[in-house]
């Protein structure tokens, strides 16, 4: 396994970062410090996720405030702050008239790699993102999924310490999406490359991220580790009985458990404890048939909606 890199205290540090477009506040006084890891950036459309990433990359000039990426001030060391940063934008962005491997090699050279090293890295990364002989085809002829692979490859070719991915799984088929998520999830664990992934797909974020930032109306609503966020969530258990649903309902009522019967036949039960021991005990006690038990389903989804609701309440 390759050696892990030395990690600084924070990969991103923003202080009162504000970006105005006329009278619209795209970023409003964003202050946060993000340790290394796989970080999910969540928020509805127009929340300010992409603006936040673009400000950190100096693609947009912040109206006020300051920020550091990998310890480099984004304004003072303009080029230096992007030296070890990779970025895969949301929209298609390729250099026309180039084959895939030529494009990735060129991007490596633009980051300062020699031609030989850039070419070697380009082929390794293209293998990694699952691109075969298509790499020798003109990039203009690629499908959306292939373009996503090429975009991820160009972001990784120069061995960055932090990677910003804006909706990286858009346009991928299910197997491609699965492969991508595994790959992105492995980057920090195996290479020490921190990943900031902006996505609308909460399940993807929940699966691979160890930290979440929720942004809405340009403000950071939540920023914590996934573990802490889940413990702050209402304890919900979903139970899918294999039969005798009415007896299950009666047992839950008798035990004084608040529950809801879902249209798919499941029981949604709210409890104070994280443990599901009480449910197993209840099933044993009433000699009920076993079933599928899912603890804290859609925890992130619920937290996300709650954060947005509170933001809307504050805004009103």
């Amino acid at each position, binding site marked *: 396994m390759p050696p892990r890199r030395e990690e600084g205290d924070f990969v991103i540090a923003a202080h009162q970062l504000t970006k105005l477009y006329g009278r619209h506040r795209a970023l409003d006084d964003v202050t946060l410090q993000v340790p290394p890891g796989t970080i999910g950036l969540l928020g509805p459309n127009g929340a300010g996720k992409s603006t936040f990433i673009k400000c950190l*990359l100096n693609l947009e000039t912040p109206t006020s405030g300051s920020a550091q990426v990998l310890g480099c001030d984004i304004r003072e060391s303009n080029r230096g702050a992007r030296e070890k940063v990779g970025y895969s934008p949301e929209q298609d962005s390729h250099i026309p008239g180039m084959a895939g491997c030529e494009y990735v090699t060129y991007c490596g050279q*633009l980051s300062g790699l020699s031609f030989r090293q850039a070419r070697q890295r380009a082929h*390794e990364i293209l293998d990694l993102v699952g691109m075969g002989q298509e790499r020798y085809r003109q990039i203009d002829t690629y499908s959306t999924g292939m373009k996503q692979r090429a975009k991820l490859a160009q972001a990784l070719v120069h061995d960055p310490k932090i990677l910003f991915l804006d909706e990286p799984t858009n346009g991928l088929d299910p197997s491609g999406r699965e492969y991508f998520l595994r790959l992105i999830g492995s980057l920090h664990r195996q290479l020490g490359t921190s990943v900031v992934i902006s996505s609308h797909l909460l399940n993807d974020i929940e699966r691979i991220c160890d930290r979440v930032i929720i942004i809405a109306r340009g403000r950071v609503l939540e920023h914590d580790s996934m573990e802490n966020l889940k413990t702050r969530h209402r304890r919900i258990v979903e139970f899918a009985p294999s039969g005798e649903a009415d007896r299950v309902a009666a047992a839950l009522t008798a035990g004084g458990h608040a529950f809801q019967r879902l249209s798919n036949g499941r029981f949604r039960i709210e409890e104070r404890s994280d443990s599901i021991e009480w449910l197993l005990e209840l099933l044993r006690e009433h000699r009920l048939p076993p079933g599928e038990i899912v603890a804290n389903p859609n925890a992130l989804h619920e937290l996300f909606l709650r954060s947005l609701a509170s933001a809307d309440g504050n805004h009103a």
Partner: protein
Amino acid sequence: METTLDLSRCLEKPRGVAYRRWVITSTGLRQLLATRFFRLLLTLAWTAGVGMAACGLVFSQSVATGGWLERAATAFGPRAEALASAFGGLVLLYPDVCVTGLFTVVFWLQSFLGLWLCLVALTVLVPRLVTRDRASNALIIYLARPLTSVDYLVGKLGIVAGLLGLLWTGPLLFGWALSMLFAPNSDFLVYSISPLLRALLFNGVSLVVLAAVALGASALTRSSRITILLWISLWIIAGTLAGGSRSPEWLRRVSFTYNLHALRAHTLRLDTTLINAAEQLPLLSATLAAKLKSEGAKAAPTSLPGTLASLAGFVALSSVVFLRKLRPE
């Protein structure tokens, strides 16, 4: 469930900004050289360079003592021999008029061909400079790397400079150097330096103007077709309107090609060369001398401040356009 990342690590220190700019330039030129049309233009330009060298070689060998002209003249009797000697003597007595004059005329002609080839090549290149990068959002790929918009521009400017070098400056220097290699004496070197420097000055100013206008036109739209139409309008349509004998002064100033032609008249001074030849060379007949004088008067340049102001305006306007447009979208 993890993917095993079997990757080499980048342990080398990243190369500097000059290297990254050079990568943009060299890649752009390589893409251009891959087109058959550009290779055709290149063949024309370097054939002209060889033609220049041949012209200089023939001239220097004609007037050299023991050269082919002198030897050939002996075969035609004493009169031809005397004429050949007189011609050689003329160059020896008036090297400033003869050598400088010859090279001024040669560089004047080469500048027409060089400029025309560059304008044709730029018609193909202009959409590749910025337009296509804007259309495909490639700009964000450049600017998310350790590059600034200035680095991007310098890289693209390098492509235009490379194009001019390959089609114009290269053949010019090649033709001159080759003709100097076989020159019979140092007079050819000494008296050809001045026209060479003037030709290079015109070349340099043209580079600045063409690069600025090309980058400006390229950055203005996101459609390759519109960019080409814009370039052709600026070059051919504005040039034709400005070139009319009754065109008003302001119309002449809105064509960068017209102003470049005016600047050529100022820098290469063909008029002075022709008038000097008419006035100083004793062997010329009165009719020929008068003809040279009248041609010299026709080649006289127009107002220099107006020309320079117009070209500076083009550069400034184009710079404003491309600096405003070079932002990720």
